Protein backbone atom coordinates (compact mmCIF):
# COMPACT_ATOMS: atom_id res chain seq x y z
CA UNK A 1 0.00 0.00 0.00
CA UNK A 2 1.35 3.35 -1.02
CA UNK A 3 0.68 5.82 1.78
CA UNK A 4 3.09 8.48 0.49
CA UNK A 5 1.80 11.86 -0.36
CA UNK A 6 3.55 14.84 -1.92
CA UNK A 7 2.49 18.27 -0.78
CA UNK A 8 4.17 21.62 -1.39
CA UNK A 9 7.36 21.53 0.69
CA UNK A 10 6.43 18.21 2.23
CA UNK A 11 7.28 14.75 1.10
CA UNK A 12 5.28 12.64 3.51
CA UNK A 13 5.76 8.91 3.97
CA UNK A 14 2.21 8.81 5.27
CA UNK A 15 -0.50 11.46 5.60
CA UNK A 16 -0.64 11.45 9.41
CA UNK A 17 0.70 14.20 11.65
CA UNK A 18 -0.06 15.40 15.13
CA UNK A 19 -2.06 18.66 15.22
CA UNK A 20 -0.61 21.88 16.50
CA UNK A 21 -0.89 22.43 20.23
CA UNK A 22 -1.66 18.81 21.02
CA UNK A 23 1.89 17.51 20.71
CA UNK A 24 4.02 20.31 22.16
CA UNK A 25 7.35 20.25 20.34
CA UNK A 26 7.39 16.48 20.19
CA UNK A 27 9.69 15.76 23.12
CA UNK A 28 7.08 14.15 25.34
CA UNK A 29 5.67 11.88 22.66
CA UNK A 30 9.13 10.89 21.48
CA UNK A 31 9.34 8.95 24.74
CA UNK A 32 6.50 6.77 23.49
CA UNK A 33 7.58 6.08 19.89
CA UNK A 34 10.08 7.33 17.29
CA UNK A 35 8.69 10.47 15.68
CA UNK A 36 10.23 9.39 12.39
CA UNK A 37 7.23 7.11 12.00
CA UNK A 38 4.99 10.15 11.48
CA UNK A 39 4.25 11.88 8.19
CA UNK A 40 5.32 15.15 9.79
CA UNK A 41 5.07 17.00 13.10
CA UNK A 42 3.12 20.24 13.43
CA UNK A 43 4.60 22.22 16.30
CA UNK A 44 2.77 24.21 18.95
CA UNK A 45 2.10 27.83 17.92
CA UNK A 46 5.04 30.24 17.91
CA UNK A 47 4.67 33.95 18.64
CA UNK A 48 7.25 36.74 18.57
CA UNK A 49 7.78 36.86 22.31
CA UNK A 50 7.14 34.21 24.91
CA UNK A 51 3.52 34.08 26.06
CA UNK A 52 2.12 32.75 29.29
CA UNK A 53 -1.39 32.21 27.95
CA UNK A 54 -4.66 32.21 29.84
CA UNK A 55 -5.31 31.54 33.51
CA UNK A 56 -6.31 27.98 34.46
CA UNK A 57 -8.53 25.96 34.23
CA UNK A 58 -7.69 25.79 30.54
CA UNK A 59 -9.37 22.54 29.55
CA UNK A 60 -12.76 20.96 30.07
CA UNK A 61 -14.70 18.08 28.65
CA UNK A 62 -17.89 18.17 26.64
CA UNK A 63 -19.96 15.43 25.05
CA UNK A 64 -17.86 13.84 22.32
CA UNK A 65 -15.14 16.43 22.64
CA UNK A 66 -13.22 18.86 24.79
CA UNK A 67 -12.76 22.58 25.22
CA UNK A 68 -9.43 24.35 25.55
CA UNK A 69 -8.33 27.89 26.15
CA UNK A 70 -4.57 27.55 26.39
CA UNK A 71 -4.10 30.98 24.87
CA UNK A 72 -1.06 30.29 22.69
CA UNK A 73 1.37 29.73 25.53
CA UNK A 74 4.81 29.24 24.00
CA UNK A 75 8.42 30.17 24.68
CA UNK A 76 8.64 32.60 21.74
CA UNK A 77 10.07 32.09 18.26
CA UNK A 78 13.75 32.53 19.17
CA UNK A 79 13.62 29.99 21.92
CA UNK A 80 11.72 27.55 19.70
CA UNK A 81 14.39 27.86 17.02
CA UNK A 82 17.18 27.35 19.51
CA UNK A 83 15.73 24.85 21.96
CA UNK A 84 13.05 22.89 20.18
CA UNK A 85 13.69 22.63 16.46
CA UNK A 86 17.14 21.01 16.82
CA UNK A 87 15.54 18.22 18.82
CA UNK A 88 12.85 17.67 16.19
CA UNK A 89 15.39 17.81 13.35
CA UNK A 90 17.32 15.03 15.03
CA UNK A 91 14.18 12.86 14.90
CA UNK A 92 14.26 12.83 11.09
CA UNK A 93 10.70 13.94 10.56
CA UNK A 94 9.39 16.81 8.42
CA UNK A 95 8.54 19.84 10.57
CA UNK A 96 5.68 22.28 10.16
CA UNK A 97 5.80 25.42 12.27
CA UNK A 98 2.51 26.91 13.48
CA UNK A 99 2.83 30.69 13.25
CA UNK A 100 0.68 33.00 15.36
CA UNK A 101 0.64 36.66 16.26
CA UNK A 102 -1.34 39.67 17.40
CA UNK A 103 -0.43 41.90 14.46
CA UNK A 104 0.51 41.39 10.83
CA UNK A 105 4.02 42.51 11.78
CA UNK A 106 4.30 39.81 14.40
CA UNK A 107 3.12 37.12 11.96
CA UNK A 108 5.67 38.34 9.42
CA UNK A 109 8.48 38.44 11.96
CA UNK A 110 7.79 34.94 13.26
CA UNK A 111 7.36 33.52 9.77
CA UNK A 112 10.55 35.07 8.50
CA UNK A 113 12.59 33.78 11.41
CA UNK A 114 11.20 30.29 11.74
CA UNK A 115 10.84 29.48 8.04
CA UNK A 116 14.59 29.10 7.75
CA UNK A 117 14.43 26.07 9.98
CA UNK A 118 11.35 24.07 9.00
CA UNK A 119 9.72 22.43 5.97
CA UNK A 120 6.47 24.37 5.92
CA UNK A 121 4.47 26.94 7.87
CA UNK A 122 0.94 26.59 9.17
CA UNK A 123 -0.38 30.12 9.46
CA UNK A 124 -2.66 30.16 12.46
CA UNK A 125 -5.27 32.84 11.84
CA UNK A 126 -7.85 30.89 13.76
CA UNK A 127 -6.99 30.66 17.45
CA UNK A 128 -10.19 31.55 19.30
CA UNK A 129 -8.49 31.85 22.68
CA UNK A 130 -6.59 35.11 22.53
CA UNK A 131 -8.03 38.58 22.93
CA UNK A 132 -6.25 40.23 20.04
CA UNK A 133 -5.03 38.90 16.75
CA UNK A 134 -5.49 35.26 15.96
CA UNK A 135 -9.00 34.60 14.94
CA UNK A 136 -9.87 38.11 13.79
CA UNK A 137 -7.61 37.51 10.79
CA UNK A 138 -9.44 34.26 10.24
CA UNK A 139 -12.92 35.78 10.12
CA UNK A 140 -12.34 38.55 7.62
CA UNK A 141 -11.30 37.60 4.08
CA UNK A 142 -9.55 40.91 3.44
CA UNK A 143 -7.37 40.59 6.54
CA UNK A 144 -6.79 36.91 5.82
CA UNK A 145 -5.61 37.54 2.29
CA UNK A 146 -3.37 40.34 3.42
CA UNK A 147 -1.65 38.49 6.24
CA UNK A 148 -1.25 35.44 4.01
CA UNK A 149 0.35 37.49 1.24
CA UNK A 150 2.77 39.18 3.58
CA UNK A 151 3.76 35.96 5.26
CA UNK A 152 4.19 34.18 1.93
CA UNK A 153 6.47 37.01 0.79
CA UNK A 154 8.91 36.48 3.63
CA UNK A 155 8.62 32.74 4.10
CA UNK A 156 11.29 30.49 2.64
CA UNK A 157 8.94 27.51 2.72
CA UNK A 158 5.36 26.86 1.57
CA UNK A 159 2.61 28.33 3.72
CA UNK A 160 -0.54 26.44 4.75
CA UNK A 161 -3.24 28.73 6.10
CA UNK A 162 -5.18 27.29 9.04
CA UNK A 163 -8.82 28.28 8.79
CA UNK A 164 -11.34 28.87 11.52
CA UNK A 165 -14.73 27.14 11.45
CA UNK A 166 -16.29 30.16 13.18
CA UNK A 167 -17.35 31.76 9.91
CA UNK A 168 -20.48 32.07 7.84
CA UNK A 169 -18.76 31.12 4.60
CA UNK A 170 -15.69 28.94 4.71
CA UNK A 171 -15.25 29.01 0.93
CA UNK A 172 -14.76 32.77 0.98
CA UNK A 173 -12.02 32.39 3.56
CA UNK A 174 -10.35 29.53 1.69
CA UNK A 175 -10.30 31.52 -1.52
CA UNK A 176 -8.89 34.54 0.27
CA UNK A 177 -6.01 32.42 1.55
CA UNK A 178 -5.45 30.99 -1.92
CA UNK A 179 -5.42 34.47 -3.45
CA UNK A 180 -2.93 35.51 -0.79
CA UNK A 181 -0.57 32.87 -2.13
CA UNK A 182 -1.11 30.00 0.29
CA UNK A 183 0.34 26.69 -0.90
CA UNK A 184 -2.27 24.80 1.05
CA UNK A 185 -5.01 24.96 3.67
CA UNK A 186 -5.21 23.48 7.11
CA UNK A 187 -8.81 22.82 8.15
CA UNK A 188 -9.97 23.33 10.79
CA UNK A 189 -9.16 24.96 14.06
CA UNK A 190 -11.54 24.74 17.02
CA UNK A 191 -15.08 26.06 17.21
CA UNK A 192 -15.66 28.69 19.89
CA UNK A 193 -17.68 27.17 22.70
CA UNK A 194 -18.45 27.39 26.41
CA UNK A 195 -19.54 25.24 29.28
CA UNK A 196 -21.08 26.60 32.45
CA UNK A 197 -20.84 24.71 35.72
CA UNK A 198 -24.26 24.76 37.39
CA UNK A 199 -22.59 24.54 40.82
CA UNK A 200 -20.19 27.46 40.50
CA UNK A 201 -22.63 29.23 38.13
CA UNK A 202 -19.63 30.30 36.07
CA UNK A 203 -17.97 29.18 32.86
CA UNK A 204 -15.82 26.11 33.49
CA UNK A 205 -12.84 27.70 31.74
CA UNK A 206 -11.25 30.76 33.28
CA UNK A 207 -11.20 32.39 29.89
CA UNK A 208 -14.98 31.96 29.60
CA UNK A 209 -14.96 30.60 26.08
CA UNK A 210 -12.68 27.93 24.68
CA UNK A 211 -12.23 25.98 21.48
CA UNK A 212 -14.24 22.81 20.91
CA UNK A 213 -12.21 19.95 19.46
CA UNK A 214 -12.67 16.22 19.16
CA UNK A 215 -15.18 13.92 17.53
CA UNK A 216 -18.06 16.34 18.11
CA UNK A 217 -16.40 18.68 15.64
CA UNK A 218 -15.78 16.13 12.91
CA UNK A 219 -19.00 16.49 10.90
CA UNK A 220 -18.50 20.26 10.78
CA UNK A 221 -14.94 19.89 9.56
CA UNK A 222 -15.87 17.25 6.97
CA UNK A 223 -18.61 19.55 5.68
CA UNK A 224 -16.23 22.49 5.35
CA UNK A 225 -13.52 20.48 3.60
CA UNK A 226 -16.14 19.03 1.26
CA UNK A 227 -17.31 22.56 0.47
CA UNK A 228 -13.84 23.98 -0.07
CA UNK A 229 -12.22 21.12 -2.03
CA UNK A 230 -13.91 21.81 -5.39
CA UNK A 231 -13.42 25.56 -5.04
CA UNK A 232 -9.64 25.76 -4.59
CA UNK A 233 -6.64 24.33 -6.41
CA UNK A 234 -4.44 23.91 -3.35
CA UNK A 235 -4.26 20.85 -1.08
CA UNK A 236 -5.96 20.59 2.28
CA UNK A 237 -4.65 19.15 5.54
CA UNK A 238 -7.78 17.95 7.33
CA UNK A 239 -8.35 17.71 11.07
CA UNK A 240 -11.02 17.60 13.73
CA UNK A 241 -11.96 14.57 15.79
CA UNK A 242 -9.82 11.99 14.04
CA UNK A 243 -9.61 8.85 16.19
CA UNK A 244 -9.64 5.93 13.77
CA UNK A 245 -8.20 5.00 10.40
CA UNK A 246 -11.76 5.04 9.01
CA UNK A 247 -12.01 8.68 10.11
CA UNK A 248 -8.91 9.38 8.02
CA UNK A 249 -10.53 7.77 4.98
CA UNK A 250 -13.57 9.98 5.57
CA UNK A 251 -11.30 13.06 5.53
CA UNK A 252 -9.50 11.91 2.39
CA UNK A 253 -12.81 11.31 0.61
CA UNK A 254 -14.03 14.78 1.62
CA UNK A 255 -10.96 16.28 0.00
CA UNK A 256 -8.07 16.31 2.46
CA UNK A 257 -4.66 15.19 1.16
CA UNK A 258 -3.25 14.66 4.63
CA UNK A 259 -4.60 14.80 8.17
CA UNK A 260 -3.71 15.98 11.63
CA UNK A 261 -4.69 14.31 14.88
CA UNK A 262 -5.17 16.54 17.89
CA UNK A 263 -7.18 15.83 21.02
CA UNK A 264 -7.06 12.08 20.51
CA UNK A 265 -3.40 12.20 21.61
CA UNK A 266 -4.67 12.97 25.11
CA UNK A 267 -6.86 9.87 25.16
CA UNK A 268 -4.08 7.73 23.86
CA UNK A 269 -0.52 9.03 23.55
CA UNK A 270 0.21 6.30 21.01
CA UNK A 271 -2.70 7.14 18.71
CA UNK A 272 -0.67 8.61 15.82
CA UNK A 273 1.59 5.60 15.64
CA UNK A 274 -1.39 3.25 15.79
CA UNK A 275 -3.12 5.11 12.98
CA UNK A 276 0.04 4.95 10.86
CA UNK A 277 0.03 1.20 11.38
CA UNK A 278 -3.67 0.74 10.66
CA UNK A 279 -4.12 3.03 7.68
CA UNK A 280 -2.84 0.71 4.92
CA UNK A 281 -5.16 -2.10 5.93
CA UNK A 282 -8.10 0.26 6.28
CA UNK A 283 -7.50 1.82 2.87
CA UNK A 284 -7.30 -1.66 1.42
CA UNK A 285 -10.53 -2.66 3.17
CA UNK A 286 -12.35 0.21 1.47
CA UNK A 287 -10.88 -0.70 -1.90
CA UNK A 288 -8.13 1.87 -2.29
CA UNK A 289 -4.63 1.18 -3.62
CA UNK A 290 -3.08 4.37 -2.30
CA UNK A 291 -3.79 7.44 -0.22
CA UNK A 292 -3.88 9.57 -3.33
CA UNK A 293 -6.64 7.54 -4.89
CA UNK A 294 -8.94 8.33 -1.96
CA UNK A 295 -8.35 12.09 -1.95
CA UNK A 296 -11.54 13.88 -2.96
CA UNK A 297 -13.26 10.58 -3.68
CA UNK A 298 -16.65 11.74 -2.42
CA UNK A 299 -16.72 14.29 -5.22
CA UNK A 300 -16.36 11.64 -7.92
CA UNK A 301 -18.80 8.90 -6.92
CA UNK A 302 -21.92 9.09 -8.98
CA UNK A 303 -24.04 6.24 -7.63
CA UNK A 304 -26.94 7.45 -5.50
CA UNK A 305 -26.47 7.49 -1.78
CA UNK A 306 -28.88 5.08 -0.27
CA UNK A 307 -29.41 2.16 2.00
CA UNK A 308 -28.17 -1.09 0.59
CA UNK A 309 -29.00 -3.91 2.88
CA UNK A 310 -26.65 -6.90 2.72
Amino acid at each position, binding site marked *: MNTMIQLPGLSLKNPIMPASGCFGFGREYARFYPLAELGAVIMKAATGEKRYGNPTPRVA*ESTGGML*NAIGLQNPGVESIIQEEIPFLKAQQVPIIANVAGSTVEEYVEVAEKISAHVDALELNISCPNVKEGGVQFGMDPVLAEDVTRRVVQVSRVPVYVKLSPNVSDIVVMAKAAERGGASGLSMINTLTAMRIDPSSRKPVLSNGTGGLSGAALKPVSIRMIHQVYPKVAIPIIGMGGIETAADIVEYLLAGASAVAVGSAN*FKNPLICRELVEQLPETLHHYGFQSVEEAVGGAHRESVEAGLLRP
Partner: protein
Amino acid sequence: MIREDLTVVDHTLVAEDTYQLILCGRMVHDIKQPGQFVHIRTSTDEYLRRPVSISDYNIDEETITLLYKVIGKGTKALTAYQIGDSLDVLGPGGRGFPVKARPGENVLLTGGGIGVPPLYRLAHELYEKGADLTIILGFQSIRHAFLKSEFQQYGSVHIMTDDGTSGNKGFVTDGIAGMSGSFDRYYTCGPTPMLKAVVKQLGDTEGYISMEERMGCGIGACFACVVPSHDEKGYKRICCDGPVFHHKEVVLT
Protein backbone atom coordinates in the same frame (compact mmCIF):
# COMPACT_ATOMS: atom_id res chain seq x y z
CA MET B 1 6.20 6.77 31.75
CA ILE B 2 4.21 4.11 29.94
CA ARG B 3 0.66 3.41 28.87
CA GLU B 4 -0.43 0.12 30.30
CA ASP B 5 -3.60 -1.84 30.91
CA LEU B 6 -3.47 -2.46 34.63
CA THR B 7 -5.54 -5.15 36.30
CA VAL B 8 -7.84 -4.32 39.18
CA VAL B 9 -6.89 -6.52 42.12
CA ASP B 10 -8.91 -4.80 44.82
CA HIS B 11 -11.56 -2.11 44.97
CA THR B 12 -13.22 -1.12 48.22
CA LEU B 13 -15.19 1.72 49.74
CA VAL B 14 -13.11 3.25 52.53
CA ALA B 15 -15.12 6.37 53.43
CA GLU B 16 -18.10 8.27 52.11
CA ASP B 17 -17.74 8.39 48.29
CA THR B 18 -14.10 7.39 48.70
CA TYR B 19 -12.63 4.22 47.25
CA GLN B 20 -9.34 2.38 47.46
CA LEU B 21 -8.33 0.87 44.14
CA ILE B 22 -5.39 -1.51 43.86
CA LEU B 23 -3.97 -2.06 40.38
CA CYS B 24 -1.43 -4.58 39.22
CA GLY B 25 1.11 -4.21 36.42
CA ARG B 26 4.66 -3.50 35.39
CA MET B 27 4.23 0.25 35.73
CA VAL B 28 5.10 0.04 39.41
CA HIS B 29 8.77 -0.47 38.51
CA ASP B 30 8.99 3.05 37.09
CA ILE B 31 7.90 4.82 40.26
CA LYS B 32 10.67 7.07 41.53
CA GLN B 33 9.19 9.08 44.39
CA PRO B 34 6.11 9.26 46.57
CA GLY B 35 3.69 11.86 45.23
CA GLN B 36 3.79 10.86 41.59
CA PHE B 37 0.46 10.21 39.91
CA VAL B 38 -1.21 8.09 37.25
CA HIS B 39 -3.43 9.42 34.46
CA ILE B 40 -6.46 7.20 34.05
CA ARG B 41 -8.80 6.68 31.15
CA THR B 42 -11.92 6.11 33.18
CA SER B 43 -14.14 5.36 30.18
CA THR B 44 -13.65 5.04 26.45
CA ASP B 45 -15.58 8.06 25.25
CA GLU B 46 -13.81 10.76 27.24
CA TYR B 47 -11.06 12.96 25.83
CA LEU B 48 -9.50 13.75 29.17
CA ARG B 49 -7.91 11.25 31.46
CA ARG B 50 -8.15 11.72 35.23
CA PRO B 51 -5.04 12.27 37.35
CA VAL B 52 -4.93 10.30 40.62
CA SER B 53 -2.01 10.19 43.02
CA ILE B 54 -0.19 7.02 43.86
CA SER B 55 -0.90 6.52 47.54
CA ASP B 56 1.22 3.44 48.01
CA TYR B 57 2.84 0.67 45.99
CA ASN B 58 4.44 -2.71 46.32
CA ILE B 59 7.25 -3.66 43.97
CA ASP B 60 7.17 -7.36 44.77
CA GLU B 61 3.46 -7.73 44.19
CA GLU B 62 3.60 -5.22 41.34
CA THR B 63 0.68 -3.29 42.79
CA ILE B 64 -0.18 0.38 42.95
CA THR B 65 -2.70 1.68 45.48
CA LEU B 66 -4.91 4.65 44.69
CA LEU B 67 -7.51 6.39 46.81
CA TYR B 68 -10.08 8.43 45.00
CA LYS B 69 -13.17 10.37 45.79
CA VAL B 70 -16.22 10.44 43.51
CA ILE B 71 -16.54 13.98 42.19
CA GLY B 72 -18.05 13.82 38.72
CA LYS B 73 -18.38 11.75 35.61
CA GLY B 74 -14.89 10.27 35.50
CA THR B 75 -14.53 9.18 39.10
CA LYS B 76 -18.11 7.92 39.00
CA ALA B 77 -17.15 5.74 36.01
CA LEU B 78 -14.18 4.40 37.95
CA THR B 79 -16.47 2.92 40.59
CA ALA B 80 -17.78 0.45 38.02
CA TYR B 81 -14.45 -1.36 37.66
CA GLN B 82 -14.39 -4.75 39.29
CA ILE B 83 -11.65 -7.14 40.32
CA GLY B 84 -10.14 -8.63 37.19
CA ASP B 85 -11.12 -5.73 34.93
CA SER B 86 -8.36 -3.89 33.18
CA LEU B 87 -7.90 -0.15 33.26
CA ASP B 88 -6.01 1.99 30.75
CA VAL B 89 -3.42 3.92 32.76
CA LEU B 90 -0.65 6.32 31.80
CA GLY B 91 2.11 6.70 34.35
CA PRO B 92 3.83 7.09 36.64
CA GLY B 93 3.70 10.82 35.95
CA GLY B 94 5.38 13.88 37.29
CA ARG B 95 7.87 14.58 40.02
CA GLY B 96 6.94 13.61 43.53
CA PHE B 97 8.12 14.61 46.99
CA PRO B 98 11.86 14.72 47.57
CA VAL B 99 12.26 12.40 50.54
CA LYS B 100 14.65 14.44 52.65
CA ALA B 101 15.12 13.61 56.30
CA ARG B 102 17.88 13.10 58.78
CA PRO B 103 17.17 11.00 61.85
CA GLY B 104 15.41 13.06 64.49
CA GLU B 105 14.35 15.89 62.24
CA ASN B 106 10.89 17.28 62.88
CA VAL B 107 8.85 16.94 59.74
CA LEU B 108 5.26 18.09 59.27
CA LEU B 109 2.83 16.42 56.88
CA THR B 110 -0.50 18.10 56.24
CA GLY B 111 -3.17 16.83 53.92
CA GLY B 112 -6.69 17.96 53.20
CA GLY B 113 -9.42 15.60 51.99
CA ILE B 114 -8.41 13.74 48.91
CA GLY B 115 -5.00 15.42 49.19
CA VAL B 116 -4.17 12.93 51.93
CA PRO B 117 -3.37 9.83 49.80
CA PRO B 118 0.01 10.86 48.30
CA LEU B 119 1.31 11.64 51.80
CA TYR B 120 0.89 8.04 52.82
CA ARG B 121 3.85 6.56 50.98
CA LEU B 122 5.80 9.69 51.81
CA ALA B 123 5.18 9.15 55.54
CA HIS B 124 6.43 5.59 55.18
CA GLU B 125 9.66 6.67 53.50
CA LEU B 126 10.34 9.59 55.86
CA TYR B 127 9.75 7.30 58.82
CA GLU B 128 12.27 4.84 57.44
CA LYS B 129 14.80 7.64 57.28
CA GLY B 130 14.22 8.27 60.96
CA ALA B 131 12.28 11.53 60.84
CA ASP B 132 9.93 12.53 63.64
CA LEU B 133 6.60 12.98 61.91
CA THR B 134 3.72 15.19 62.87
CA ILE B 135 0.79 14.37 60.62
CA ILE B 136 -2.22 16.65 60.40
CA LEU B 137 -5.10 15.39 58.29
CA GLY B 138 -8.17 17.45 57.53
CA PHE B 139 -11.54 16.02 56.48
CA GLN B 140 -15.07 17.35 56.13
CA SER B 141 -16.36 15.00 58.82
CA ILE B 142 -15.74 11.64 60.38
CA ARG B 143 -17.64 10.01 57.54
CA HIS B 144 -15.05 11.29 55.07
CA ALA B 145 -11.96 10.33 57.07
CA PHE B 146 -9.64 7.53 55.93
CA LEU B 147 -6.06 6.22 56.41
CA LYS B 148 -6.14 7.54 60.00
CA SER B 149 -4.90 4.44 61.76
CA GLU B 150 -2.54 3.54 58.91
CA PHE B 151 -0.71 6.83 59.36
CA GLN B 152 -0.34 6.24 63.11
CA GLN B 153 2.45 3.70 62.57
CA TYR B 154 4.64 6.50 61.20
CA GLY B 155 4.08 9.43 63.54
CA SER B 156 1.68 11.37 65.70
CA VAL B 157 -1.56 11.87 63.85
CA HIS B 158 -3.91 14.81 64.42
CA ILE B 159 -7.30 14.81 62.77
CA MET B 160 -9.16 18.02 61.99
CA THR B 161 -12.74 17.98 60.77
CA ASP B 162 -14.84 20.86 59.52
CA ASP B 163 -17.65 19.80 61.83
CA GLY B 164 -15.66 18.42 64.75
CA THR B 165 -17.07 14.89 64.36
CA SER B 166 -13.56 13.47 64.58
CA GLY B 167 -10.43 14.92 66.17
CA ASN B 168 -10.59 18.69 66.55
CA LYS B 169 -12.97 21.03 64.83
CA GLY B 170 -11.35 23.32 62.32
CA PHE B 171 -9.02 23.44 59.34
CA VAL B 172 -5.56 21.94 59.07
CA THR B 173 -4.19 25.44 59.58
CA ASP B 174 -5.88 25.52 62.99
CA GLY B 175 -4.16 22.23 63.65
CA ILE B 176 -0.77 23.66 62.68
CA ALA B 177 -1.38 26.71 64.87
CA GLY B 178 -1.96 24.40 67.80
CA MET B 179 1.40 22.68 67.46
CA SER B 180 4.24 23.66 69.75
CA GLY B 181 7.81 23.77 68.49
CA SER B 182 9.03 24.30 64.98
CA PHE B 183 9.56 22.06 61.99
CA ASP B 184 12.65 21.40 59.90
CA ARG B 185 10.56 20.72 56.86
CA TYR B 186 6.95 20.32 55.76
CA TYR B 187 5.05 18.56 53.01
CA THR B 188 1.47 19.37 52.10
CA CYS B 189 -1.21 18.36 49.64
CA GLY B 190 -4.77 19.58 49.33
CA PRO B 191 -6.95 22.20 47.69
CA THR B 192 -5.15 25.35 46.57
CA PRO B 193 -6.74 27.60 49.24
CA MET B 194 -5.38 25.22 51.87
CA LEU B 195 -1.93 25.13 50.28
CA LYS B 196 -1.85 28.91 50.27
CA ALA B 197 -2.81 29.15 53.90
CA VAL B 198 -0.28 26.52 54.95
CA VAL B 199 2.56 28.10 52.98
CA LYS B 200 1.79 31.48 54.46
CA GLN B 201 1.58 30.14 57.97
CA LEU B 202 4.87 28.27 57.80
CA GLY B 203 6.79 31.19 56.32
CA ASP B 204 10.39 30.35 55.56
CA THR B 205 10.30 26.74 56.67
CA GLU B 206 11.44 24.51 53.80
CA GLY B 207 8.24 23.18 52.30
CA TYR B 208 7.02 21.01 49.46
CA ILE B 209 3.52 21.36 48.14
CA SER B 210 1.61 19.08 45.82
CA MET B 211 -0.69 20.96 43.45
CA GLU B 212 -3.54 20.06 41.19
CA GLU B 213 -5.01 21.46 38.04
CA ARG B 214 -7.18 20.21 35.20
CA MET B 215 -4.99 18.30 32.80
CA GLY B 216 -5.03 17.55 29.10
CA CYS B 217 -2.18 15.32 28.00
CA GLY B 218 -0.77 14.68 31.48
CA ILE B 219 2.74 14.40 30.05
CA GLY B 220 3.84 17.98 29.46
CA ALA B 221 2.81 18.63 25.87
CA CYS B 222 -0.39 20.68 25.98
CA PHE B 223 0.21 23.42 28.56
CA ALA B 224 -3.18 22.88 30.18
CA CYS B 225 -1.85 22.51 33.70
CA VAL B 226 0.48 25.43 34.21
CA VAL B 227 1.11 27.47 37.34
CA PRO B 228 3.07 30.73 37.33
CA SER B 229 6.61 30.34 38.63
CA HIS B 230 9.34 32.65 39.83
CA ASP B 231 11.98 31.49 37.35
CA GLU B 232 12.85 32.99 34.02
CA LYS B 233 10.50 30.69 32.07
CA GLY B 234 7.62 32.03 34.14
CA TYR B 235 5.63 28.81 34.45
CA LYS B 236 5.70 25.22 35.60
CA ARG B 237 3.62 22.37 34.25
CA ILE B 238 1.98 20.53 37.12
CA CYS B 239 1.91 17.23 35.22
CA CYS B 240 5.63 16.97 34.60
CA ASP B 241 7.51 19.72 36.46
CA GLY B 242 5.26 18.94 39.45
CA PRO B 243 2.81 18.10 40.91
CA VAL B 244 5.21 18.67 43.82
CA PHE B 245 7.02 22.00 44.05
CA HIS B 246 9.24 23.73 46.54
CA HIS B 247 6.99 26.35 48.11
CA LYS B 248 9.11 29.18 46.70
CA GLU B 249 9.14 27.83 43.17
CA VAL B 250 5.55 28.62 42.21
CA VAL B 251 3.10 31.48 42.60
CA LEU B 252 -0.05 30.36 44.37
CA THR B 253 -2.96 32.38 43.03
